[in-house]
């Protein structure tokens, strides 16, 4: 049972607020992703949990025990760094055994634990290898094993797959998820990759300028983004600025019934929720480009005023550049003053 509680934590660098009054509870065995663009404060927050940065205000507790001011070596946390940070002057075994030796465990226990964790990450028999003899994926597995071998209460992952290629990243994130679930270890994961967050997390915390934009299950955050920022950051989203007049949204001839008060509004439509039909007479947009991805196609269109929209289509061969198309959104959300004011079901 390990619960991480972050209470009203702030971190200032001079006058810059890197993390601003942030609160979060990560339940036992839960994997929470901190997701946000560069400079959103997610890594600073993780470093504060790991003990590598001190909060300016607030408190951090693990299982009710205050750790806010403890140095990293006294915290029950294990951190996996983006750059692996393996000790290149030691072989794999020594990298994993270093922390166990500091705990003054008997040699037999160290050998056993190292072998067990190497097996867990699929690197049995690699103990004698030097770290530079391993591939990027193997190095990241060793970095993960180095943290896991000490059985930390909280596992902290700081963009661990950022330096790996796409294929390897997808495979490793599945392995990490399997291991995390098998060990039932409470995990805080930092990433700026939305795919990673959607695939891995029990809950996603979307951060912006050191603050929480939205917290929720990945499917909820994807389908029901609370702010235009979340809508634009998670997945691909058409964000269309326009005006509502007499319960109709209008932007350069693209009109959608919208039951809200008159005024400026941002309409959000996912490409998969924007149906197209070729219409030479009453078309609302002109096809700019059609991209065929095999399983589906993506159609880029221009509104008469130059606004760009995307639509996901099942049969991209039905469309061609220069065609006039009619737009039919099947699910929309509308935001005003950064707040959600309408969502169709």
């Amino acid at each position, binding site marked *: 049972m390990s619960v991480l509680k972050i209470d009203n934590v702030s971190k200032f660098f001079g006058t810059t607020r890197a993390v601003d009054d942030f609160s979060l509870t990560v339940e036992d065995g839960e994997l929470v992703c901190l997701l946000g663009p560069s400079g959103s404060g997610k890594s600073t927050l993780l470093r504060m949990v*790991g*003990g*590598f940065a001190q909060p300016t205000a607030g408190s951090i507790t693990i299982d009710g025990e205050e750790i806010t001011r403890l*140095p*990293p*070596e006294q915290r029950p*946390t*294990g*951190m996996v*760094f983006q*750059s692996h*940070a*393996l*000790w*290149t*002057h*030691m072989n794999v075994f020594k990298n994993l055994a*270093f*922390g166990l030796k*500091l*705990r003054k465990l008997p040699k037999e226990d160290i050998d056993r634990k190292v072998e067990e964790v190497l097996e867990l990450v699929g690197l049995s028999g690699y103990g004698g290898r*030097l770290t*530079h003899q391993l591939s990027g994926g193997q190095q990241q597995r060793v*970095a993960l094993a*180095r*943290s896991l071998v*000490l059985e930390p209460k909280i596992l902290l992952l700081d963009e661990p797959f950022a330096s790996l290629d796409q294929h390897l990243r997808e495979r490793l994130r599945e392995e990490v998820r399997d291991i995390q679930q098998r060990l039932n270890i409470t995990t805080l994961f930092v990433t700026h990759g939305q795919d990673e967050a959607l695939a891995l997390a029990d809950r996603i915390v979307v951060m912006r300028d050191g603050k929480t934009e939205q917290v929720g299950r990945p499917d909820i955050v994807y389908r029901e983004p609370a702010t235009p920022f979340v809508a634009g950051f998670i997945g691909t989203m058409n964000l269309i600025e326009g005006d509502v007049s007499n319960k109709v949204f209008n932007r350069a001839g693209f009109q959608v019934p919208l039951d809200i008060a008159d005024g400026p509004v941002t309409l959000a439509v996912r490409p998969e929720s924007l149906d197209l039909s070729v219409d030479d007479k009453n078309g609302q947009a002109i096809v700019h480009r059609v991209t065929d991805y095999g399983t589906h196609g993506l159609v880029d269109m221009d509104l008469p005023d130059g606004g760009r929209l995307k639509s996901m289509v099942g049969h991209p061969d039905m469309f061609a550049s220069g065609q006039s198309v009619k737009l039919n959104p099947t699910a929309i959300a509308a935001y005003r003053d950064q707040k959600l004011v309408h969502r169709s079901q």
Partner: protein
Amino acid sequence: MVTLLSAAICLPAAYAFARMSFPGRNILFFSFLAGHAFPKFGLLIAIAAIFLQLNLIGTFWGVVLIQLVGTLLFMIWIPVAAFQSVDRRMEEAARDVGASPLRVFWSITLPQAGPTIAAALLLSFVGTFYETEGAWLIGAPGIRTTPVLMISFINNQMVVQYGAVLSVILWVPSFIALMFARRVIGGGAFARGFGG
């Protein structure tokens, strides 16, 4: 002796320059260049005048001190670069698995910076071993280092072979040091640290 003393004094200082921020850091760091910014012999004369007042002329410690000054540049500047190039994340990873700051320095930072520091030690040793001007000016007449002895043999002895034999003997320590360096500081060691 000078190299060991220099390492004991300079390495902690180099680590402080590399990792810590304190008032006057940059000025102090560049001050180690000062000793090499003036004609050496003129500087030695000025230092000799000070040493005379301190009764260090003709003493063992006087020679050690003057040669120590000559090593400061190598033993501060090169190790600073070595410590700065050690990935901080490696040090943080060591803290994360339970190592105290001192243990991190001993087990991670020093081995990572080791090959470069070994190069600095080697340069310092060779530079000190063959240094003659300071040793002659401060050590005379009581203390004479081997190179000083060699020069006096070459200049003053009728039998020039003494000087030749001595110069051959002098070649041996630096050759051994270079062979040792070749073994310890192998190709790529500067990038990976010792054992890599």
